[in-house]
């Protein structure tokens, strides 16, 4: 058996040379001083491969046209097993790639490893940084939610400001400033067709150059006997890759990547924000107003990139010990402080997301189909802690019966009697009576009658503002005039699609004085507390069209 294996492997090597190539790759000699500080390049390549892998998986279930893109991503997130994890890996992998690439550059920069003869290696590396950023920019549009759409509107307008090439860039990005199907197709094409092969070529060139000139030694290192890449350095690279992967995996599992509502080009109230690694540019832009805007938008970033590329020619001195490279350390510190300052300023000026009730569309949103009465039932269900005894599918406790399978066999009258005196309807039941009014018990029964194993998890996702809003809606008997999801009266206008017809401030003002905003309206004024007003409006705006 062993001989046969040896024969097979020597045949393979004889015909392809693969083993010799691998051996040459692994047993390359590197300076004795190499070690942990040189792991970042390998980690960056690893993260690129993870992005390629998860990106291909996403593409298997993704329709690259606006609208369908959003729906197919929702399908990946809510219907497919593991879809959320794959998207999480791809999303957080992009951020981690930026971090690792920058760490790699900082290390090379601090040690002066770009010096003669490694100038070209550095310059290819800078191009790879730009390519990494281009992935972030083009990938940002692909979910086609509001965040993606409005972020890209800003980006394309910045590109349009570039001196001389601005108009051409605008045309290249798909049209006259508006982000639409053409822009989408081009961003998608760049992201999956153009950039990946370009990255592979550039990485190959970069690694070839590293091999050609050898890993940069420390000053005085040339005299010390060299060591081999395998296994110690490979081990160190592997450990670093493992740490990076563990962080990435944890992020993908634990940190939810939200999906906002479908891109709405008419939503003028949306405040776009770029991805965190572009925030400093976004903030720089704000420092330059009017005709100077082009300085912040194009000139300064352009100069920064140019400087970065020219670093090996600006610093042409001999290699010195890293501890004596004070200018390099000062530059990195300055850049870090500047970047942090700008980013913090940008984050601080970002409106807090809790001010506006955001619906997370990356989870099932079946709750949107419920009537206000049923939504109020969900609120009572939570308030009464029904799940401390009852199971809902595979969640909750098993003291009482599973409500997803039992309640469909009952009717509302039975349930309400049961809520009031559980043991009278089910002798021996240890359930305490529920202390709610008849109307409230009606809501609870209405909700439970809708509950089945398919929609149970979705109902748990109903956001708090919607539940509170539905309670306000019920308490004020809004359904006596208005229709929501087919339930209610049609004396007043139906409330589905309200967000399309009116602005938020209009609706809030309208509650206080309906006649002022719609003369002739028979709607009475409602004095709501600020909290109630906010919840009710948010709820109405979250309704399906």
């Amino acid at each position, binding site marked *: 058996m062993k001989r046969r294996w040896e024969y097979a492997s020597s045949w393979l090597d004889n015909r392809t040379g693969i083993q010799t190539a691998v051996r040459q790759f692994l047993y390359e000699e590197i300076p004795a001083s190499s070690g942990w500080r040189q792991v970042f390049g390998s980690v960056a390549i690893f993260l690129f491969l993870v992005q390629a892998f998860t990106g291909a998986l996403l593409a298997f279930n993704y329709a690259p046209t606006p609208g369908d893109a959003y*729906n*197919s991503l929702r399908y990946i997130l809510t219907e*497919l097993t*593991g*879809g959320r994890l*794959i998207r999480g890996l791809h999303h957080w992998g992009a951020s981690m790639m930026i971090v690792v690439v920058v760490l790699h550059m900082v290390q090379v920069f601090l040690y002066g490893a770009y010096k003669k003869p490694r100038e070209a290696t550095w310059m290819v590396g800078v191009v790879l940084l730009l390519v990494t950023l281009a992935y972030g920019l083009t990938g940002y549009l692909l979910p086609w939610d509001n965040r993606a759409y409005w972020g890209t509107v800003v980006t394309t307008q910045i590109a349009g400001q570039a001196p001389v090439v601005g108009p051409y860039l605008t045309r290249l990005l798909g049209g006259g400033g508006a982000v639409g199907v053409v822009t989408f197709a081009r961003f998608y094409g760049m992201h999956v067709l153009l950039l990946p092969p370009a990255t592979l070529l550039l990485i190959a060139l970069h690694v070839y150059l590293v091999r050609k000139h050898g890993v940069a030694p420390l000053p005085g290192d040339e005299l010390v006997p060299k060591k081999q890449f395998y296994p110690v350095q490979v081990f160190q690279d592997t450990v670093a890759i493992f740490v990076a*992967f563990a962080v990435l*995996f944890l992020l993908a599992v634990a940190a939810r990547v939200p999906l906002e509502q479908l891109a709405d080009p008419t939503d003028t109230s949306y405040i776009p924000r770029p991805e965190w690694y572009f925030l400093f540019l976004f903030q720089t832009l704000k420092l330059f107003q009017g005709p100077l805007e082009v300085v912040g938008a194009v000139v300064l970033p352009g100069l920064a990139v140019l400087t970065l590329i020219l670093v090996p020619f600006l610093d042409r001195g001999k290699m010195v010990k890293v501890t004596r490279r004070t200018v390099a350390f000062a530059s990195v510190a300055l850049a870090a402080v500047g970047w942090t300052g700008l980013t913090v300023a940008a984050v601080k000026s970002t409106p807090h997301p809790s001010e506006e009730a955001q619906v997370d569309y990356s989870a099932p949103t079946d709750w949107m189909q419920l009537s206000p009465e049923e939504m109020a039932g969900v609120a009572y269900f939570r308030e009464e802690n029904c799940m401390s005894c009852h199971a809902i599918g595979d969640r909750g406790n098993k003291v009482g019966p599973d409500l997803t399978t039992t309640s469909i066999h009952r009717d509302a009258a039975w349930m309400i009697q049961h809520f009031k005196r559980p043991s009278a309807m089910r002798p021996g039941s240890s359930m305490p009576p529920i202390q709610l009014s008849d109307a409230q018990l009606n809501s609870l029964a209405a909700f439970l009658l809708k509950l089945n194993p*398919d929609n149970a998890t979705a109902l748990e996702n109903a956001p708090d503002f919607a539940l509170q809003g539905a309670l306000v809606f019920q308490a004020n008997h809004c359904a006596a005039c208005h229709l929501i999801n087919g339930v209610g009266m049609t004396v007043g206008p139906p409330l589905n699609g309200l967000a399309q017809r009116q602005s938020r401030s209009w609706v809030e003002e309208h509650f206080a004085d309906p006649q002022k905003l719609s003369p002739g309206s028979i709607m009475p004024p409602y004095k709501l507390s600020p909290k109630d007003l906010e919840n009710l409006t948010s709820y109405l705006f979250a309704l399906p069209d």
Partner: protein
Amino acid sequence: MDYVPIAAQPEIRETTRRRFFIGAIYAVWGGIAAALGVPALVYLFFPPKVRKDEVWIEAGDIGKVPPRSPVEMVFRRNRTDGWRIISEKSTAWVVKLADQQVVAYGPQCTHLGCAYHWDDGKNEFVCPCHSSLFSMDGKVLSGPAPRPLDRYETKVQGTKLLLGKLDRPGEQRA
């Protein structure tokens, strides 16, 4: 001569160190491959979470159907295709048979899938393609049709006729 433990001898220490590095490299890469590979397989091979298509669809009002006189009912049926829900027009030939039993036939001839129709004069279902003839209870009277008309599962609620799956005997389903 002083005693030197085996593990402290330089060459042996070097080989165990080397073995450890190589073992760790294989272990970590194996772990990463599994952590990426298993979710990928699950993602690709597990079916989407069941968003069940409606099981029973309301086809129409059975009260208006005269006994022993087939009526073509047109209704819409939702079909889930990945992230899309497609609303399709479907039809059924509905007959109230003598014993108050309601039967709904699929709209295609069992020969080659042409749309057949009811001929009042002949009191037969007639397929225009190859002249297959079916009786009111779906049996083949003449022509090349290999089997009786396919039937929907039916359920009557009040006067509402609900249709379930179309039962196609002899046809392989994936």
